[in-house]
C-alpha cells in the first residue's frame, strides 16, 4: 500500500465527559489531492480539522482515541495526535497550514498584514526582516493581491474581506506546507469572490502540489474543488468516495437528502425535497425508504404551463405595492468641521411593483443595498426621496401613529434567528406581543389559543409556548419568527435573508413552509437573498441589484437562461458547480 500523506484513523474527539463531537472517523489524503469534508453545523467537520492541527480548545476538548498519521518532509511517519505541544508547533504553519472561515476576525487588528505573514516566515524559515518582507511581497503577488507593498503595511481593517482571505492564504502557503486545511474559507464571502478564491486555491495547489482538506457545508463548492469527499453527519462519516461517484450515485439516504434539498438553478420545483423525504431518524436507527433522487425530482417539477397561468392571474391584478424612484443616500462627513459631504448611495433610484400573492425575489451581493431597500419599504429607514404606495396609500406621508397602524399589514422576517427573538421573552409572549399591539382578538385567552394554533402551523408544539428562545435550534427559531410575523395576519411579508443562516436541510424546510403559508393565506412576499438559486426557486419575478441600482428585472427563468447585464452573467457564472 502506498504511503498516504495523511491518514486519519478512527479519530474520536470528546468535549467534556459526555459529548462526542467526532466519533471514530477515518479518511486519507494524498499529495496534490483535495479532500472535501462536507456536513451541516454540528457534524464535527470543524473539530476534525482543528484536531489535525491540535488546535481544539483543551479543556474541554480532548482526542480520546485514534491516530492522525502524517508523512513528514523528512519522510518519517508521525502521529500528530500523540505529539507533545513543542513538537506539534514545529509542524503548525510550517508543514501543515490552515485558513479559517472568518477573514474579518482571523487577522490581528493591531498588527499590519505584512508583519503577520512575515512572522511565520521568520519563525520557520529563519529569514531576517528584510528577506521576510521581500518573500511576503512575493507571496502577496502570488495570491493576486493588488498593490502588495501597500497591503504589506496596511492594517486588516483597511482591506476588504476577500483581500483578507488572500492574506490568510499567503500566510498559510508562506512556508510551502504539505497540507493546507481550509475551514469554510469562502462561507463569509460573496459568491463572485468565492469563485476567485477557489480558483486561486486550485492554481496554488497545482504549483505547490499540496494536499488540501477543504471543509464546507456547500456541496456546490465541493463539486468545484475536491476530488474526494467525506460526508459527515453527527460526528460520523456516513459516506466517503470520489466526488463524481457520490454526487451521481449517493448511497446513504442522508447524502441523498443533502444533495436533493439544495435548490439548484436548473430545476423548477413545486417544493424542495427534504432530508425527511429520504430518511427519518429513530433513537438509534435510520429508517430509509429507497427513493431515487431523479424520480423524486421529476414528481416535484412544475410544468411551464402552470407557471404561465400563475403569472397571468397574478399580473392581471392591481399592484399591492408600488415603489417609485426610491433613493437612500447616507451622508458621510469629511474634512474639517464635517463641512464637505459625500454620500453612500445605498439605494439609488429604484422602482418596481409587487402584485398580490406574488413573490418578488431580490438578489445581490453584500452591500448592494437590498437590505436597506427592504427596510426602507417598511419605513424602518426613511428614504431620502421617492414614493412608496402600499394598498393605495402613500406610506411616506403617514404620521408616526398612522404608520404604526399600517404595520399590521406589512411584516418582516430577519436573517439571524438568534438575534431576532428577545432572549427574555417566552416565545408565546413574543408571538402574542404584536397581537396585543394591534389589539387583535378580544383577550389574552383567545390570543393564546391563536398563538398555539400558529405554533402548530409552523410545526412546533403547544408546549413550546412557555419556553425561551435559547432552548430552540436555529431552524425552530426561524419558524417562531415566521409565526410572529403572521400573527397579525398581514398581507405582505419581507423575508430579509431569512434562510441564509440556516443549514441547507433546514433551509429547505423553511422555504417549503413559506410557500405553504403563501398558498394558504395568499401572502405577498419580497424575498431578499444573496443566493441566486434560492431566489430563483422562491420567486415569480426577480430583481438583481448591484451598487444600489437595479441591474436587471424579469422572470427567473429568463434571467437565468439569458442574462442581459454583465453583472448578472458574472453572478451566474460564479455559482459553484451544478450537481
Amino acid at each position, binding site marked *: 500500500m502506498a504511503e498516504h500523506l495523511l491518514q486519519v484513523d478512527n479519530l474520536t474527539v470528546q468535549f467534556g465527559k459526555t459529548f462526542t463531537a467526532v466519533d471514530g472517523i477515518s479518511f486519507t489524503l494524498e499529495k496534490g489531492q483535495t479532500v472535501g469534508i462536507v456536513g451541516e453545523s454540528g457534524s464535527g467537520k470543524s473539530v476534525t480539522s482543528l484536531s489535525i492541527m491540535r*488546535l481544539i480548545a483543551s479543556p474541554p476538548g480532548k482526542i480520546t482515541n485514534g491516530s492522525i498519521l502524517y508523512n513528514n518532509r523528512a519522510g518519517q511517519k508521525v502521529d500528530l495526535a500523540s505529539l507533545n505541544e513543542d513538537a506539534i508547533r514545529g509542524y*503548525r*504553519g510550517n508543514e501543515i*497550514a490552515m485558513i*479559517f472561515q472568518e477573514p474579518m476576525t482571523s*487577522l490581528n487588528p493591531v*498588527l499590519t498584514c505584512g508583519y503577520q505573514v512575515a512572522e511565520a516566515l521568520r519563525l520557520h524559515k529563519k529569514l531576517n526582516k528584510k528577506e521576510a518582507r521581500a518573500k511576503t511581497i512575493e507571496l502577496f503577488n502570488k495570491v493576486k493581491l493588488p498593490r502588495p507593498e501597500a497591503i504589506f503595511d496596511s*492594517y486588516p481593517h483597511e482591506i476588504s474581506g476577500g483581500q483578507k482571505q488572500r492574506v*490568510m492564504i499567503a500566510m498559510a502557503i508562506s512556508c510551502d506546507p504539505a497540507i493546507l486545511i481550509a475551514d469554510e474559507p469562502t462561507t463569509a464571502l460573496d459568491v463572485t469572490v468565492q469563485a476567485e478564491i477557489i480558483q486561486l486555491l486550485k492554481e496554488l495547489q497545482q504549483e505547490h502540489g499540496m494536499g488540501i482538506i477543504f471543509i464546507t457545508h456547500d456541496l456546490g463548492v465541493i463539486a468545484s474543488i475536491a476530488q474526494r469527499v467525506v460526508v459527515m453527519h453527527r460526528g460520523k462519516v456516513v459516506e466517503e468516495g470520489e466526488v463524481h461517484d457520490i454526487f451521481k450515485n449517493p448511497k446513504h439516504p442522508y447524502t441523498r437528502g443533502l444533495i436533493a434539498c439544495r435548490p439548484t438553478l436548473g430545476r423548477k420545483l413545486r417544493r424542495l425535497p427534504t432530508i425527511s423525504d429520504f430518511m427519518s431518524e429513530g433513537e438509534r436507527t435510520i429508517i430509509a425508504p429507497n427513493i431515487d433522487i431523479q424520480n423524486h425530482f421529476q414528481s416535484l417539477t412544475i410544468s411551464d404551463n402552470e407557471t404561465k397561468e400563475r403569472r397571468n392571474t397574478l399580473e392581471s391584478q392591481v399592484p399591492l405595492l408600488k415603489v417609485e424612484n426610491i433613493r437612500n443616500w447616507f451622508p458621510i462627513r469629511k474634512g474639517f468641521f464635517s463641512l464637505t459631504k459625500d454620500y453612500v448611495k445605498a439605494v439609488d433610484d429604484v422602482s418596481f411593483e409587487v402584485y398580490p400573492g406574488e413573490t418578488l425575489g431580490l438578489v445581490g451581493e453584500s452591500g448592494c443595498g437590498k437590505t436597506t431597500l427592504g427596510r426602507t419599504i417598511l419605513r424602518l429607514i426613511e428614504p431620502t426621496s421617492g414614493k412608496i404606495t402600499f394598498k393605495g396609500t402613500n406610506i411616506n406621508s403617514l404620521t408616526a401613529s398612522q404608520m404604526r397602524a399600517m404595520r399590521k399589514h406589512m411584516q418582516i422576517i430577519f436573517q439571524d434567528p438568534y438575534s431576532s427573538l428577545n432572549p427574555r421573552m417566552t416565545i408565546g409572549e413574543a408571538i402574542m406581543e404584536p397581537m396585543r399591539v394591534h389589539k387583535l382578538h378580544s383577550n389574552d385567552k383567545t390570543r393564546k389559543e391563536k398563538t398555539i394554533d400558529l405554533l402548530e402551523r409552523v410545526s412546533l408544539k403547544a408546549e413550546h409556548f412557555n419556553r425561551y428562545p435559547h432552548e430552540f435550534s436555529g431552524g425552530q427559531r426561524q419558524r417562531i419568527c415566521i409565526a410572529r410575523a403572521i400573527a397579525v395576519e398581514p398581507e405582505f411579508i419581507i423575508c430579509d435573508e431569512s434562510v441564509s443562516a440556516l443549514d441547507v436541510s433546514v433551509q429547505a424546510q423553511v422555504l417549503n413552509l413559506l410557500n405553504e403559508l403563501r398558498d394558504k393565506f395568499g401572502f405577498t412576499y419580497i424575498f431578499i437573498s444573496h443566493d441566486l438559486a434560492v431566489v430563483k426557486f422562491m420567486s415569480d419575478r426577480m430583481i438583481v441589484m448591484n451598487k444600489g441600482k437595479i441591474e436587471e428585472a424579469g422572470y427567473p427563468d429568463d434571467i437565468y437562461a439569458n442574462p442581459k447585464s454583465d453583472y448578472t452573467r458574472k453572478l451566474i457564472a460564479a455559482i459553484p458547480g451544478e450537481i
Partner: protein
Amino acid sequence: MNILSFFLKKIISGLLVVFGVSALVFFLFNLLPGDPARMMLGQRADVQSVQSINRELGLDQPPLKRFAIYINDLSPVCLLSKDPQSFIFADSAKYGETTQLLSFGERSIYIKQPYLRRSYQSNRLVGEILVDSLKGTFILSIAALFLASFIGIPLGVISAVKKNKFADHAIGMIAALGMALPSFFAAVIIAWLFGFVLSDYTGLEMTGSLYRVDPFFGPVIEWKNLILPSITLGIRPLSVVIQLTRSSMLEVLSLDFVRTAKAKGLESRIVLYRHALRNALNPVLTAVSGWFGSLLAGAVFIEYVFNWKGIGKITVDSLETYDLPVVMGAVLLVSCFFILINIAVDLLYGVLDPRVRRSS
C-alpha cells in the same frame, strides 16, 4: 478621517466640556448660601466694609454679569478694558502679563493666563496656591498608578492564563479585597501598621509631605514619605487593573486571530504577549486614565490621613475657612486635568489601535 481633524474634534469637544464645567462650578458655588465678605471680615464687620468688599469682588452685580466676568477671567483669550472703572479693567495685579491681540478703542482682546481670583484668607493668587499643592497630588497619583499598572497588568495576565487554577483564585481574591477596602480605612491601617507599630523596622513615619522644611537648607524632598500614601492610593486602581486585565485578556484569547497565531506555530509566550496583550490593553488603558482623574480628586482622604500637602488637603483646609475661590479653583483645575487626560488617551488610542483612527 485624518488624524488632524480627529485631533481638532476632540479638542473642540473638550473645550466645550471645559466651558460647561466652569459654568456648573460657578452656579453651584454662587447658589450656595454664605456671604464671602462676612467670611473675610468676620461676623462683626460693619455694613460699610462688607459693601465695599462686595463691590471689590463684584458681588453686587447680577449673577449673569458675574458669570460673564468669571468666564472672561478664566479664558486665556479675553476682553479687557483700559478704563480703571470697568469690571474688566486690565489690572496687572490680577492678570499678570497680557498680550494684546486686537483692539477696539477702549477695549481690546488679550491673551493671558487664566485668573482664578485671590484667596479670601491669604489674598494670594489662587493659581499660585494650587500649582504649589498640585505637584504633591500629581506625584502621589502618578506613583499610585505606576504601582497599579506595573503590578496589576502582570497579575491580571497570570490570572487569565492560569484560569480557574490556584493562582487565578488567589489573585482574584486579592483584587476583590482591594476593591472593597475603603481608602480611609486602608490609610489608617497602613499608617498605623507601617508608620507606628513597625516604624522601627521600616523607618517610615505616619505622616509627612513630599517636602520637609529643613531649618538650614529650606525645603528638602523626602521620597520615603511617598511610599505609604502611594501604596494606599494604589490599592483600588490595582484591583481594578487586575480584574480588567484578566477579563479583557480572557476575551481576547478566545478570538479567532489568536487561533491564527497558534496555527502559525508561534510559541504560546509570543502569542500571549505579541498578539493577545496588545489587543487586551485598550480597556485597561481607559480605566487607568480614568483613575488618574479620580485619583487627583480621590487623594483627599489619603492626603488628610497622611497629612500630605496636596490639592485635597488644600481644599479641605480652605473649606474650613470658607475660602471659596480656592475651592472653586481646585475643582476647576482637577476637572480640566481630567478632560485633558481623556483627550490625551483618545489620541493615544489612535496610535495604539489602528482601527480607531478610521472609525471615529
